[in-house]
C-alpha cells in the first residue's frame, strides 16, 4: 500500500462527444502509478479511487456504502472473445471510476446514447469496479474450454458442496464477476449496467445482487457497522490498512506458479438469507448466545467493550457461538477479508416472509483453505445456522491490477 493515493475534486464531466469504451487492448507497457485503497475512511462524494495499481481496487478499498455484484456467463468459447471483453471492460471501468461516462451521451440524435446517462452530474462516489473469472473459464465439464487450462490460478477449484448449502442454481456460479462499489447506489448500478451493455454478445447476465449497507468493518479507524441481525460485524475482521495481514491472507504472491496471477486474490460471494422473522422473535439472551457478543455494545460475552479479546478458554462464550467457531484461534489461525453488504430482494413469494440478509463477500489467497475450511466448520456446528440459509454462491479469481495502458487479465493471454 502506498498510503492515501485517492484524488479529490474530479467530478463527472458532461462529455458530449467522444467515447471511452474501446481501444482498450494496448501493449503491455506502462507503469504502476498508484495503488488502490489504503486511503483514509474520510469519504467525500468527489473522491475517486485510482483504477490502476498492482492490485485491483475494491478489495483493499475501505468499504463503500453500496454494492452491485453481477455474475456473467461467457457466450463464446474463444479466448480472444474473453480478451476483447476484458479490454472493453477495462476502458469502461477506467472511465467510470474516474467520474467520466463511458462515451457520448448526446453526440448524435439518431443513435442510442453510448453511455446510459443516469450517473451524469453525480460525483465519482469512490466507485470501484473489480473483475474476476470463475473456474469454468479454465475448465468446464473436464474440457479445456478456452484453451486456457494451463493458465488456471492454482487455487481456483470449484468450492464443491458445503454444509449449509441451500443454493439456488439461478443465484450461483458464473464465468465472470463484476463487483461495483460506490457511496452512491446509482453510480454503482450505472457501472454494471454499462459494462453489461458494452459486453452484449460476449456475455450474458447470470445473476445480480444489490447491497444497500456496508455491513462489515474493513479499516482500523471506522466504527463497526451492524448487520441486519442488529449485531456489530467485523470487529475482528482483517483490516485493509494492515498491509502485512493483507499480504498474508489476501494477496496472491510470489508463491503462485502462475506468474500472471500474482497480485490477484480470490473472492467468495455468498447470498446468506436471514430468517428475519424467526430472529426477531428470539429472546435477547438467545441472540447474544448465538452470536457470542452483547448486542448493543458489541463486547464479547462476559467482556465490557467491543474490542476486548473474547475469552475462548472459559465457557461464557457458548461452544457453538458464531464468534468462537469463526475465530482464527479456533481455525489454525485462518482469516479472511470480509467485505459484505446487507441485501433485500423484497419478499419470498412462496411465504410472504422477508427475503433479506447478508450478501457475504470475502477475499482470500486460497478459497479452499480459508473460506471453505471455515464454512465446513460453521456449516455443521454454528448456532447461527438455525437463522440463516446460504442461497447463492460464487467463486472468482480476482484478476491482478491493471497497469496504465494495459487491460484486465492481460497476463492471461501473454
Amino acid at each position, binding site marked *: 500500500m502506498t498510503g492515501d493515493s485517492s484524488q479529490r475534486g474530479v467530478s463527472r464531466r458532461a462529455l458530449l462527444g467522444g467515447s471511452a469504451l474501446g481501444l482498450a487492448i494496448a501493449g503491455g507497457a506502462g*507503469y504502476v502509478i498508484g495503488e488502490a485503497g489504503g486511503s483514509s475512511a474520510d469519504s467525500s462524494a468527489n473522491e475517486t479511487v485510482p483504477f490502476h495499481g498492482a492490485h485491483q481496487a475494491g478489495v483493499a478499498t475501505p468499504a463503500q456504502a453500496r454494492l452491485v455484484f453481477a455474475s456473467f456467463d461467457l457466450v463464446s468459447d474463444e479466448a480472444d472473445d474473453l480478451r476483447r471483453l476484458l479490454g472493453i471492460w477495462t476502458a469502461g471501468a477506467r472511465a467510470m471510476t474516474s467520474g467520466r461516462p463511458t462515451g457520448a451521451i448526446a453526440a448524435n440524435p439518431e443513435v442510442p446514447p453510448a453511455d446510459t446517462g443516469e450517473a451524469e452530474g453525480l460525483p465519482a462516489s469512490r466507485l470501484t469496479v473489480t473483475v474476476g473469472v470463475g473456474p469454468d473459464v479454465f475448465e468446464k465439464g473436464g474440457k479445456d474450454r478456452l484453451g486456457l487450462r494451463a493458465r488456471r490460478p492454482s487455487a481456483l477449484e470449484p468450492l464443491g458442496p458445503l454444509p449449509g448449502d441451500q443454493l439456488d442454481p439461478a443465484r450461483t456460479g458464473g464465468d465472470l464477476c463484476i463487483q461495483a462499489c460506490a457511496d452512491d447506489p446509482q453510480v454503482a448500478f450505472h457501472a454494471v449496467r454499462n459494462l453489461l451493455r458494452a459486453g452484449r454478445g460476449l456475455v450474458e447476465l447470470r445473476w445480480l445482487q444489490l447491497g444497500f449497507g456496508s455491513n462489515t468493518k474493513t479499516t482500523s479507524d471506522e466504527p463497526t457497522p451492524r448487520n441486519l441481525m442488529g449485531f456489530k460485524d467485523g470487529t475482528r475482521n482483517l483490516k485493509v490498512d494492515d498491509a502485512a495481514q493483507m499480504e498474508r491472507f489476501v494477496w496472491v504472491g510470489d508463491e503462485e506458479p502462475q506468474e500472471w496471477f500474482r497480485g490477484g486474490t480470490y473472492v467468495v460471494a455468498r447470498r446468506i438469507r436471514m430468517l428475519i422473522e424467526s430472529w426477531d422473535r428470539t429472546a435477547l439472551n438467545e441472540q447474544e448466545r448465538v452470536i457470542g457478543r452483547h448486542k448493543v455494545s458489541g463486547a464479547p460475552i462476559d467482556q465490557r467493550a467491543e474490542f476486548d479479546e473474547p475469552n475462548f478458554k472459559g465457557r461464557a462464550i457458548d461452544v457453538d457461538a458464531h464468534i468462537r467457531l469463526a475465530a482464527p484461534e479456533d481455525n489454525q489461525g485462518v482469516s479472511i477479508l470480509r467485505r459484505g453488504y446487507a441485501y433485500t430482494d423484497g419478499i419470498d413469494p412462496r411465504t410472504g416472509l422477508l427475503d433479506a440478509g447478508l450478501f457475504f463477500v470475502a477475499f482470500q489467497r486460497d478459497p479452499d483453505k480459508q473460506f471453505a475450511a471455515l464454512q465446513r466448520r460453521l456449516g455443521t456446528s454454528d448456532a447461527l445456522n438455525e437463522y440463516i440459509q446460504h442461497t447463492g454462491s460464487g467463486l472468482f479469481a480476482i484478476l491482478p491490477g491493471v497497469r*496504465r495502458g494495459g487491460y484486465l487479465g492481460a497476463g492471461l493471454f501473454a
Partner: protein
Amino acid sequence: MKTPELFVRVAGTLCAVLTLGALAGCGGDDSGSASGDGAKNAKTLKFELTDEGCSPTSATVRSGPVKFVVSNPGTTETDELELKNKDGIIMGERENLAPGLSSDFTLTLQPGKYVLNCTFQNDTRDNGTVTVTGAPTTKSASASDPVLTKAVADYKAYVKDETGKLVDQTEKFVAALKAGDTKKAKDLFGPTRIHYEAIEPIAESFGNLDPEIDARVNDVADRSAWTGFHRIEQILWRQNTTKGTGPYADKLLADVKTLDAKVDRLDLQAAQIANGAVGLLDEVSNSKITGEEDRYSHTDMSDFQGNFTGAKEAFETLKPALEERGEDGLVSDIDAKIAEVQEGLDRYQRDTPLGYALYSELTPQDRREFAQQIAALAEPLSLVAGKLLTAKG
C-alpha cells in the same frame, strides 16, 4: 402494438440530424480501428503525444473530412488526444494510447477554431489548436448517395409487398369469419398477422392505425372501442365462435387497406429503416417472448418470426450502404447473430397451418436464450443508423 411516438419523432428530427452529420463520426466510436469511411477523401493531420502535450501544437486544414492520426512514440505518459470545439464539447478523441500505439479518427469539420488537448489522466490543460479554413461543408449523408437511395427504395418495395399480402390474407380471414368457419378462421389468424408484424413500425408511424389494428385489451382506455386482430382473437378462442366478429372483421379489412394505400406515400430515410429494425426486435423481446401478444391463441412464435423477418429484411436493404462505408465488421457481426436467432426459431417450426409451435411449447430455457440472443443482436443493430449518417468517402 406499441405507441407510435418514437418512429414519428425520429422522422421529424431527421433533417436536423443530417446537418449535424459532422458529429456522426465522433460519437460512439467503439472499435479503435480506423474509421474507414470518409478516410479516402479526408485530409490527414498527424499528432504525436509528448510530455508537453500535442506535437505539433497547431495545424491548419480545409473544411470537410479530416483524419486525425495520433501516435504515442513511447516516451511519455501522455496517452490521450481530444479535439474540442469552441464550446469545449469533445468532437473526437483517442485515449489509452499506450507507448508505441497509434490510432486515428475521422471527423467532418466545419470552418472555425478547435482546441487540442493531449492529456495524461485528468489533466485538462489545452495545449494546441486546429484552424479549419474554407467554406462550410453542406454535403448531407444520404441526399447524394445512390446506395442509400436504393436501400430506401428496396425497403419500400418490401413494405408494399408485405401490406399487399396482408390485405390478401385478411380478405381470406374475414371471409372465413363471415362464413362462420371457426376452425378456418383460427388457422388463418397467425398466417395473416405475420405480414403485419413484419412491418409494424411502419404502421406505427400512421397515428391511430396501429392501435386500431393491433391493440391488446390492456392497451385501450375504453374496452367498448377495442377493435382489431386481438378483439377477434378473444372471441374466436375464448368463445370458440365467429359470432359477433362481423363488425370487427369489416373494420380490420378497411384498416389494412388504408395501411396498404398509405405506404405508397411513405417518406422514409435510411436511418429510420435501421431504427425500425431495432424497434421490431424490441417487440420480440417485450411481447412475443413473454407470450403477451397473442394471449388467447398462443400464436406468439409466428408473430416472433414476423417481427424478426421484418428486422432481417430491413437490415438486408441497408447492407450495401454499410459495406460501402467500410462497416464490414459490423455487418458480419449482425449477420452471425441473425443466423443464431433464426436457427433457434427453426426448431419451433411445425407442419401445421400456423407453421410454428404454440407459445406453450416454448421452454423457459429457450425463452431466456432467445431474449439474450435478441439483446445481443439489437445492440449492434442500434449502431447502424449512426453509421449510415456518416457520409461515405
